[in-house]
C-alpha cells in the first residue's frame, strides 16, 4: 500500500485566471455560497405573506430576535436597523460556508496538477485568508464609519489621540494599536478555526477513514456556527465600543 503524505496548503489553490484575476477554489466556493443564499432568499421571498408559513415564521422570528438584541446592545434602534443587514449577512455568509464545508464533493473533486499535487475544485471558503481578511476589512471600515458618524470626527479621534495627560496619551496609543490589531485577530481567528478543523479532519481521515471523522465533523459544524456568531457579534460589539464616547 503506497502511503501518501498529507498535503496541506495554507493558501488556496489557483485553478485558473480570468481577466488577470486569479481564480481560486475558495473563490468558487464563495460564489457557490452567494448563489445558495440568493436562492434561499428567493425561496423565502416567493412565499412571503401577511399570514406567515412555517419558513417565514422561522425567518421572521430569527430576524426580529436579532434586531431586538442589536437594538438592546446598541441602545439605538435606528443604528441597529442600519447595521442589521451587515451583521446578519456576515453571519449568514460565514455560517452557510461553514455548514456546507463537509458536503461530499467539496475538497474531494479535483485533479492533480503538473507536480502531482491534488487540486480540489472547491475548498471551504474560510480556509482562505483572503476571504476572512476581506470580511474583516469590511467590518473594520463599518466600525470606524459608525464611530465617526455617531460621535463626529474629532470626538472619535480623541479616543486615539489624547493629549490631556501622559497616561491618556499612552492609553490612546494602545487603543490605536488594538484597533489595528483587530484586523489581524479577526481574520486569523476565523481562518485559524476553520482551517484547523479541516486539517484535523484530513489527518483523522488519513488514520481512521470511517466513523471517527463523523463526530469531529459534527463538532466542526458547531465550531463553524460559533465562529460565524463570534464574527458577527464582535462586529456588533466593536461598533458599540466605537459609538461610545471615551471617558
Amino acid at each position, binding site marked *: 500500500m503506497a502511503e501518501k503524505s498529507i498535503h496541506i496548503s495554507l493558501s488556496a489553490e489557483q485553478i485558473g485566471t480570468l481577466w488577470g484575476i486569479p481564480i481560486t477554489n475558495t473563490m468558487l466556493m464563495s460564489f457557490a455560497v452567494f448563489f445558495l443564499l440568493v436562492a434561499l432568499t428567493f425561496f423565502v421571498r416567493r412565499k412571503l405573506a401577511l399570514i406567515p408559513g412555517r419558513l417565514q415564521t422561522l425567518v421572521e422570528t430569527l430576524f426580529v430576535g436579532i434586531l431586538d438584541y442589536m437594538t438592546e446592545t446598541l441602545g439605538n434602534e435606528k443604528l441597529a436597523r442600519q447595521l442589521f443587514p451587515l451583521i446578519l*449577512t456576515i453571519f449568514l455568509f460565514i455560517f452557510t460556508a461553514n455548514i456546507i464545508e463537509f458536503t461530499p464533493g467539496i475538497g474531494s473533486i479535483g485533479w492533480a496538477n503538473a507536480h502531482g499535487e491534488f487540486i480540489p475544485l472547491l475548498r471551504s471558503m474560510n480556509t482562505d485568508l483572503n*476571504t476572512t481578511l476581506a470580511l474583516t476589512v469590511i467590518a473594520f471600515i463599518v466600525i470606524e464609519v459608525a464611530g465617526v458618524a455617531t460621535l463626529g470626527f474629532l470626538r472619535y479621534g480623541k479616543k486615539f489621540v489624547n493629549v490631556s495627560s501622559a497616561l491618556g496619551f499612552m492609553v490612546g496609543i494602545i487603543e490605536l494599536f488594538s484597533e489595528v490589531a483587530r484586523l489581524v485577530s479577526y481574520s486569523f481567528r476565523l481562518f485559524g478555526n476553520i482551517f484547523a478543523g479541516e486539517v484535523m479532519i484530513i489527518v483523522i481521515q488519513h488514520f481512521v477513514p470511517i466513523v471517527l471523522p463523523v463526530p469531529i465533523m459534527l463538532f466542526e459544524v458547531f465550531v463553524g456556527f460559533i465562529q460565524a456568531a463570534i464574527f458577527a457579534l464582535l462586529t456588533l460589539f466593536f461598533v458599540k465600543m466605537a459609538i461610545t464616547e471615551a471617558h
Partner: protein
Amino acid sequence: MEQILDVFGINWKLLVVQMINFGLLLLVLYIFLYKPVLAMVDVRRKKIERAIQDAEEADRQLGEAEAEKARIIREATMKGDDIIDSAKKHAETSEITIMKDAHQKAVHLLNEAERRTARDREEMIQKAEREVARMAVLSAEKILSQGALKK
C-alpha cells in the same frame, strides 16, 4: 511581510473580489430578504395593534351598551312600578266611588221601595175600608128588606 502574504496566498485582487462578492450578497439580501421581511413584520405589527385597538374599542362600546341597557331596564322598571302604583291608587279611589254610588243607589232603592209599600198599604186600607162600608150598607139593606118582608 512579503513572505507571510505569499504563504497565506494574500492577493489584493482576490481581496477585492471577495469584498465585491460580499457587498453584492449584502445588497441582494438587503433588497430581497431583509427589507421585505422586516416590512412584513412591521405591517403585521401595525395590523395587530389596530386590531387590538379595535377590540378594545368594541369592548368599551359593549360595556357602554351594557350600562345603557341596565339603565334603560332600571328606568323601565321604575316607570312600570309608578304606573302600577298609580293604577292601584286610581283603582282604589274608583272602588270607593263605585261603592259609595252603589250604597247610595241601594239606599235610594230601599227608600223608594219602602215608600211604595207604605203607599200601597194605605191604598189597600182605604180600599178595604170602602169595601167594608159598602158591605155594611149592603147587609143593612138586606136586613132591612128581610125585615120588611116579614112584616
